């Protein structure tokens, strides 16, 4: 399973001294952390601290103001745009709203990446589409439009589309936002299954504590006050060992300001 620590960790995404900004407004500076291969990595922090912006930088939609992002050894924002676009095909992204293309059916949504990049025949594609939809529990919904299904189903369909090209990295932007607790739990389980099943590295932007503790084995906490990473590491361990009061406040819903006393 992706949550258990493996002995040999190879870095997959390295963020080094990165600053992100809108114009002259600096959101975060000197971000340095590493996402290992097979991690379920949570980007956490309060509302408006730049979690989603960080994700947009990682998936190639916004350039950092300074610093670098490495995928393995490739400096993601230094290479040419065409090369970066090629790398982006290895990412699967679930956007906050699902971002399914509203003028296409679920099947067409999932088929589009396959049509564009695989050169498979029609029958093969529709078989793959059916499989991906079945994996997220939406078998039989091929002909539905995004507007005809519920928010939870839209997110799951979004995941199916994100998985269409068997990505190396899956990004989730607040996957359980706006979902009821049971659907949120189902989504968490699905993410874990996918992480273990297809072996993709998973990066989740979230502030849902139950999700963080249930699925993340590594994390970075973006601290709004000091405008940089407040802590990095396993969220469970951060809860007991972090020295940073902001991290503890976040992880305990503001009920505690210091870590629990270390066990002997």
């Amino acid at each position, binding site marked *: 399973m992706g949550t258990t620590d493996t002995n040999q960790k190879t870095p997959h995404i390295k963020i080094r001294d990165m600053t992100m900004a809108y114009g002259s407004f600096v959101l975060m500076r000197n971000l340095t952390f590493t996402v290992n291969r097979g991690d379920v990595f949570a980007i956490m922090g309060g509302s408006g601290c730049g979690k989603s912006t960080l994700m*947009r930088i990682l*998936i*190639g*939609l916004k350039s950092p103001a300074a610093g670098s992002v490495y995928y393995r050894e490739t400096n993601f924002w230094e290479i040419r745009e065409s090369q970066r*676009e*090629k790398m*982006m*095909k290895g*990412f699967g*992204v679930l*956007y*906050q*709203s*699902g*971002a*399914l*293309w*509203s*003028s296409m059916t679920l099947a067409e949504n999932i088929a*589009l*990446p396959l049509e*564009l990049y695989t050169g498979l025949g029609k029958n093969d594609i529709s078989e793959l589409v059916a499989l991906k939809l079945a994996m997220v529990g939406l078998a039989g919904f091929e002909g539905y439009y995004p507007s005809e299904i519920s928010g939870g189903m839209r997110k799951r369909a979004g995941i199916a*589309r994100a998985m269409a090209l068997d990505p190396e990295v899956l990004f989730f932007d607040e996957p359980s936002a706006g979902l009821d607790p049971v659907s949120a739990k189902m989504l968490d389980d699905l993410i874990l299954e996918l992480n273990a099943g297809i072996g993709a590295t998973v990066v989740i932007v979230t502030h849902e504590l139950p999700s963080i503790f249930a699925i993340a084995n590594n994390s970075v906490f973006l601290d709004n006050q000091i405008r940089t990473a407040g802590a990095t590491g396993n969220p469970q361990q951060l809860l007991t060992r972090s020295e940073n009061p902001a991290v503890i406040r976040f992880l305990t819903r503001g009920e505690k300001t210091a870590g629990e006393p270390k066990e002997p």
Partner: protein
Amino acid sequence: MPKPQLDTRRTAEDSLQFILAGKWKTGLPIPSAVAIFGSRIEGSRIRKISFDSRELAAWDTSLVGFVHQLSSQCAFAGIEVVPGGLPGGARRLLKLAAAVPPATDADKTVAKLSFLDRIGEAGLAAYRATLHTLEFIGELALSFQRLLRGKARFRKADILEVIQACGWQALPIVSLISILVGLILAFVGAVQLSLFGAEIYIADLVGIGIAREMGAIMTGIIMAGRTGAAFAANIGTMQVNEEVDALQTLGVSPMDFLVLPRVLALVVMMPLLTVYSDLLGILGGLIVGVGAMDISLIQYLEQTRNALTLTHFSVGLVKSVFFGLIVGLAGCMQGMRCGRSAAAVGQATTSAVVIAIVGIVVTDGLFAVLTNALGV
């Protein structure tokens, strides 16, 4: 006793007690805290205010609002307000309102700009808008180049869908407007020409007027309001829903996938619609000429045929291609530049239509000058 009532009682030399009675509910005539402060408290020797709410029949936040306002007035004057006599719920709400002091750095009032500053800002904004437009046209040109090399990625179904939307689905409205414009031109001309007994020239007036100018312009304006607005709203909503981002992460250029098919379809369909509009406009003129002015059908058609050269017709068609390009560009550009809110989609749609119509009329003016200079 439904009305809110307010009495005061001096409890000591420097203390005033407000006696609240009746219903203090929103919609009833609640006394003004500022007025009461001005008339009863300000300038007096009162240093302490308390309340008695035992006679109070009912209350809601309007009572809290009254006390809150009174308190802030008193705070300035250094007068103590004791909320003890208020209902428990109201005391809690007051405490809640006072818990977080008003943010001092969240003030959004912007310094008023002078007249010259505003002219400068407007000039810079226009400059930036021009740059954006040129950039967009450049991107579209690159996208077109990719299309020619067979590298542009979009769905064939999309282009057919847009052709349908700005093709035969637009026919009813184009028909109606074109016939009416033909009728109007003929009527206006008929009144003047009949003064000289030259009614037969209605056919020339309508034929040339419609083919050269009105057919293309009216079709352009209809398409700006119908299709251009739809492009902006459609792409703008996709922008809000992150659907455009989803395309980009897939390595698909939104320019190729969304803009190119729409602009292409419109550029192809506009001349066809214009031909249709020309025919119906001439039909409108014919209805007036034959129906109201005593010209025979054959005479009218013959006169139109003589007046209308291929040049007139082609000028209209060439313009319609440009109009299609303008409408498509304006709609798609505003959609792509749309912000991420529902209000932004509305703005994008509005400005798409405005830009397209202004663009059409200005381009038409340029064509008038150009064709005049070239003698066509």
